[in-house]
């Protein structure tokens, strides 16, 4: 077993700064409202001498322009949950540790990632892209990995130990306080002059067990791997939602792209972990006192690439005017769909072409709106207006045409005439009534009859009966039309199509 521990001591501060870096001094406050304490401070605040555990009033006295933000434990828990979703792309065995960090069991997936160093690099770069900074360490037991990661805030170097012998040597030097034992245990140990794990291990086991209880002995044994340390693994959920709050108002829609990229990277990690993609997701812009704007971004086929989603969101945001300044940004996705991973091929083939086609449809659809973009398909029937239907290009994987298309050979074989009857390339949505003179119908002039009549009589069963005689006609300017006469009425002529 090999465990990677991710310890995020400055999570509250990083959450506050994910939407955009704050240049001025800023601290996160926690504790009672009467006397709040500084939980963490950004580098600008630390320059003024503000340190954690200082009273907020004292910090304000040091830094005049200090921004004080309240700590939200629920937000942190949600962020850690989303981070666990993201981390599930590296290994299926992710465990949350005490609500402060993550433990990843990576022995089984090392080969997939090409070994430990590339994996650590990927995790580190990924975290940085998400806007987090974590202490990383590797050890054969989860508790040891956690202790090593925690030790890094006191200035210890990043540590990677894959064998038990070197781990034990290193653990012995670590302070006992890292275990997080209660003061009732730590105080007597310190009174005995025992500060380090190594000193503790040198004590007689039976006496230590009797005096300090089984919990302490169990922690020591688990850290060294003497007894098993089972962990409850995190199960990635079926839906995903993540958001980030800005400490300021955003007026430019394109300025949202930077924080959006971080959220989309989380989404991608979650989708990779689930081996899935999504076909649509929601972009939620929270406004001050004006509710929120929800933009739905759809793609033709399940996707999970951050870059693709970001490009589509950019098209959409460029077209959007913000009704009010944005204070927070969120994304949400449900409806996981199976994702097909395609191999990239050197020579363009049908598959890569289909991907390019989908990308084009997504791009046009996200800017113009999916309803401005359509494909055609034919339906069985005789009334011309009912055989030609539009279908959305973003409707799904199966092209609707494939669903409705009938074998092309059947009607041809049954057709008594060798050449199909003429059909115009344009068909008006609603037939236009023609002016009828003594000499016959007119359409921008006198009409000459070229072909016809072709009787179409259908639909008596569905309440829209059509009994028409169709003709191909041409006017003096050379324009060719497809017109029909209602069968029951002598003088009712309609223009239905144009031969272009």
């Amino acid at each position, binding site marked *: 077993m090999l465990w990677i521990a991710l310890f995020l001591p400055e999570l509250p501060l990083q959450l506050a700064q994910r939407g955009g870096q704050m240049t001025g001094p800023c601290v996160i406050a926690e504790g009672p409202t009467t006397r709040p304490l500084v939980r963490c401070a950004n580098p600008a605040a630390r320059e003024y001498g503000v340190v954690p555990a200082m009273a907020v009033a004292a910090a304000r006295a040091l830094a005049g322009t200090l921004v004080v933000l309240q700590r939200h434990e629920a937000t942190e828990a949600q962020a850690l949950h989303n981070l666990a979703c993201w981390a599930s792309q590296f290994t299926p065995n992710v465990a949350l540790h005490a609500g402060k960090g993550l433990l990843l069991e990576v022995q089984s997936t090392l080969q997939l990632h090409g070994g430990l160093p590339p994996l650590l690099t990927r995790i580190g770069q990924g975290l940085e892209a998400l806007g987090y900074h974590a202490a990383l360490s590797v050890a054969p037991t989860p508790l040891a990995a956690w202790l090593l990661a925690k030790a890094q805030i006191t200035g210890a170097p990043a540590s990677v130990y894959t064998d038990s012998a070197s781990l034990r040597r290193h653990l012995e030097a670590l302070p006992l306080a890292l275990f997080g034992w209660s003061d009732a245990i730590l105080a007597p140990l310190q009174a005995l002059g025992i500060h380090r794990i190594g000193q503790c291990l040198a004590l007689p086991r039976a006496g230590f067990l009797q005096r300090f209880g089984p919990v302490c002995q169990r922690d020591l044994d688990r850290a060294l791997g003497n007894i098993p340390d089972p962990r409850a693994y995190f199960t990635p959920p079926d839906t995903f939602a993540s958001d980030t709050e800005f400490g300021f108002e955003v007026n430019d829609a394109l300025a949202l792209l930077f924080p959006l990229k971080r959220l989309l990277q989380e989404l991608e990690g979650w989708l990779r972990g689930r081996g899935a993609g999504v076909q649509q997701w929601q972009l939620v812009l929270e406004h001050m006192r004006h509710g929120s704007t929800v933009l739905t971004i759809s793609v033709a086929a399940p996707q999970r690439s951050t870059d693709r989603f970001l490009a589509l969101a950019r098209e959409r945001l460029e077209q959007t005017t913000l009704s009010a300044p944005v204070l927070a940004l969120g994304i949400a996705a449900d409806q996981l769909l199976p994702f097909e991973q395609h191999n990239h091929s050197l020579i363009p083939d049908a598959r890569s072409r289909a991907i390019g086609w989908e990308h084009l449809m997504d791009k046009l659809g996200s800017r113009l709106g999916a309803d*401005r973009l359509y*494909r*055609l398909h034919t339906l069985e029937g005789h009334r011309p207006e009912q055989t030609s239907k*539009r279908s959305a290009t973003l409707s799904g994987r199966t092209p609707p045409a494939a669903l409705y298309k009938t074998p092309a050979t059947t009607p041809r074989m049954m057709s008594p005439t060798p050449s199909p009857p003429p059909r115009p*390339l344009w068909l008006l949505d609603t037939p236009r009534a023609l002016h009828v003179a003594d000499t016959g119908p007119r359409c921008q002039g006198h009409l000459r009859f070229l072909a016809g009549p072709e009787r179409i009589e259908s639909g008596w069963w569905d309440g829209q009966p059509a009994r028409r005689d169709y003709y*191909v006609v041409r006017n003096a300017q050379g324009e060719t039309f497809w017109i029909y006469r209602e069968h029951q009425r002598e003088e009712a002529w309609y223009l239905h*199509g144009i031969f272009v």
Partner: protein
Amino acid sequence: MPQSNRQQALESVLRNASVWRAEQVARDAPAGISTTHSALDQALPDAGWPLGALTELLCEQTGIGELFLLLPALRALCADGRGIALIAPPHPPFARAWEAAGIDLERLFVVDADGKALLWAAEQTLRSGECGAVLVWGQGAGRALTHRALQRLHLAAGTGHAACFLYRAANAQTLPSPAPLRLRLAAHAGLLQAHIVKCRGIPRHGPIPLPLFPAHWDAPPVRRIPQPPPVATPPRLLAAPAPAKLA
């Protein structure tokens, strides 16, 4: 300068190897798609519709076969697995007719847009290289259809190696255009006639007649409007006999 001297000067210039006559422009391997009309193919410098370039079709009227003219090329591109895009067509396309013309409906899509969005959609579609032919109806673009916009379309067509056909009204002929090929289409005596307004090399003068529609349409038997089937009309009421005049 006397006539003979002028002739000599011209001859000496023409003997210079670096001077080419327009009619000698090398006709290398045809880069175009055949129009299937031999007269038109011969007149076009690429022996067909050029790929990777903007082609302007200036129509004196609509409904004269200006789209029918392109169908063989569209069919060939479809068979090649490339798509067809109709950007802002003036009327809804009739699926049956396109299918009957041999166009794969799964490779055909229509965009409803106007103004700058129309040009943007056309440019993106051309640039992607997914579509072999992008048909653009310029009327919807209105004032956005500037010389610069045409240049962008031409460059995008080159990037995506696609044919861009732009339909415009015939009065746009006087406007400058970066399109290497411009045709004016008119109907005459039931035939579509193409005039080459501009092309590489020397444009052929005079109209090129293009028989598009079935021959029997163009020479139809003299046909009266078929009489509608007899409609049972109620017998007309006889006028009531005039009352006898009183003397």
